[in-house]
């Protein structure tokens, strides 16, 4: 076995050894394959976000950008009531939207996962089809439906149910919640459906066999096992809706203005990018913190079920 080393790489040299290292190393090949995607995400998200953080510590005076470090934007964000009110309102509205959307979607997803035997696919297509149409138009059609001279009011009046148009339908938090619950329905149904569908049916039979009725079985088996879907759905709805400014500006009126509208205003009319950045960063951090806290609570809650 003296010529052992020679037989390993007949075409020695550093290139041969490098090639051998690459083909022999799973890790290197995996990383290489992952790198284009990572590059795009880093270049188009991580770097811009860092720039945004940098901006948030700068300041704007009319048209010139002052790049000396300042905490002024953040002190503004923390001290001025208007931002607190808007932030709280945004989080509350998004929270309610998330809750309502998930609660409405759960039975629907349950129905498709457990009750529909044939044509599951048809149901799924029916449920997701509205989601494939323009978001802007979906929001807009709610404006048309809920408006002062809109579909509901004119419909009820022409039927003689009411004499005057109902004013409480549009331009308030309620209209924002209804519109968002509709617009984000697919994001709730699909993750919950997938997690329900994955549940091994014999687990449910085992629970019944061990003496659980349908209700206890639901809370002890089905719900905990579908929790990943519920959490995913909640995140997918809560986080983007906080940052939505289309819905508030179309159907929210003054009472429905959300934090994203103010951020957007800083980048357009007010032309104060540093303040806008500070608002955006604080919102993102706060929302992430709230989301993490809720996930933690949800997991604790599920773990408490025995």
């Amino acid at each position, binding site marked *: 076995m003296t010529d052992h080393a020679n037989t390993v790489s007949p075409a020695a040299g550093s290139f041969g050894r490098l090639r051998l290292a690459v083909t022999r190393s799973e890790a290197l090949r995996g990383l290489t*394959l992952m790198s284009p995607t990572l590059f795009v995400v880093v270049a188009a998200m991580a770097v811009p976000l860092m720039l945004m953080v940098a901006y948030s510590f700068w300041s704007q005076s009319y048209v010139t950008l002052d790049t000396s470090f300042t905490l002024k934007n953040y002190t503004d964000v923390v001290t001025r009531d208007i931002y607190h009110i808007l932030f709280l309102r945004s989080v509350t509205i998004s929270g309610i939207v998330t809750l309502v959307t998930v609660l409405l979607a759960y039975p629907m997803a349950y129905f498709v996962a457990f*009750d529909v035997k044939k044509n599951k696919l048809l149901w799924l297509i029916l*449920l997701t089809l509205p989601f494939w149409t323009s978001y802007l138009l979906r929001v807009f059609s709610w404006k048309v439906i809920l408006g002062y001279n809109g579909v509901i009011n004119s419909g009820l009046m022409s039927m003689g149910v009411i004499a005057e148009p109902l004013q409480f339908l549009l331009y308030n938090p309620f209209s924002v919640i209804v519109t968002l619950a509709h617009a984000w329905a697919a994001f709730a149904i699909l993750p919950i459906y997938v997690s329900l569908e994955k549940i091994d049916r014999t687990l449910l039979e085992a629970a019944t066999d061990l003496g659980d009725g349908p209700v206890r079985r639901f809370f002890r088996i089905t719900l905990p096992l579908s929790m990943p879907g519920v959490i995913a759905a909640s995140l*997918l709805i809560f986080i983007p809706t906080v940052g939505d400014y289309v819905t508030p500006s179309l159907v929210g009126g003054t009472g429905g203005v959300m934090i*994203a509208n103010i951020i957007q205003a800083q980048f357009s009319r007010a032309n104060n990018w540093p303040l806008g950045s500070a608002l955006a960063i604080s919102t993102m951090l706060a929302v992430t913190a709230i989301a993490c806290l809720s996930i933690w609570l949800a997991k604790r809650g599920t773990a408490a079920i025995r």
Partner: protein
Amino acid sequence: MSAQPQSRDTAARRWRGGYAVLYLAFLYVPILVLPVFSFNDSIFVSFPLKEFTTKWYAQLAGQPALFDALANSLKVAIFSAVFSTLLGIFAAKAMTRYRFPLQRPAFALVMLPLVIPEIILGLSLLIMVNRIGLSLSLYTVSIGHVLLCVPFAVAVLLSRFEGFDRSLEEASLDLGESAWMTFWRVTFPIVFPGIVSSLLLTFTISFDEFIIAFFLTGSETTLPVHIWSQLRFPQRLPSVLALGTLLLVASTLLIILAEWLRRRGIQPDKQPDM
């Protein structure tokens, strides 16, 4: 099983069935408002309905800006769909086929755009584009859309790649095919339905996306940005409804086409999905 709980099950099932129908109505009524009033001869969207008309559709034909916006959106959406699906294939393959250090964090980073508000993605990109000194164009919109679409592409493809039996690729290598030909002869045909789903989903997301496009668009606007500008003019409202109806029909046809393609493909044996 005794008869009594079974009948209780049926009752519960019936309730859920009724609920499902109501829920569908909630989903569809706002959508159906568009076509109904797009044929209504009045610039106000209200009951009672007036005469039937197709003049709003005719009006669309006389809006060159609309067709420009449509063409722009198609360009951006096709680019974003192809590019993000390609990146999705790489990532999904890396995630399912290999083990490497920092795999979980890398995956989390790729999926992160999913849970960052679009307004923040859009604005931070605006800042970067501004810093670099690029002018806003369809390219800047496309970059934003690729970023937004990548997590969706990865999610769709990952579920497909996960059900993929690795020994099929090994069998192909074993029978003498190169890695590249193995991809084309084995991997690609089997994950093809997943690729179609990913292309379709990312196309739709990009085609429909407004918030990022609104910040990153230059003089050439995309369709949602164009629609947004139209919403300010009440007299344009009916033609927006007509446009919405056409988009609705187009996306429905697209879904049917996609489903037809998917059915023609083969499911991996063990995947009981959808």
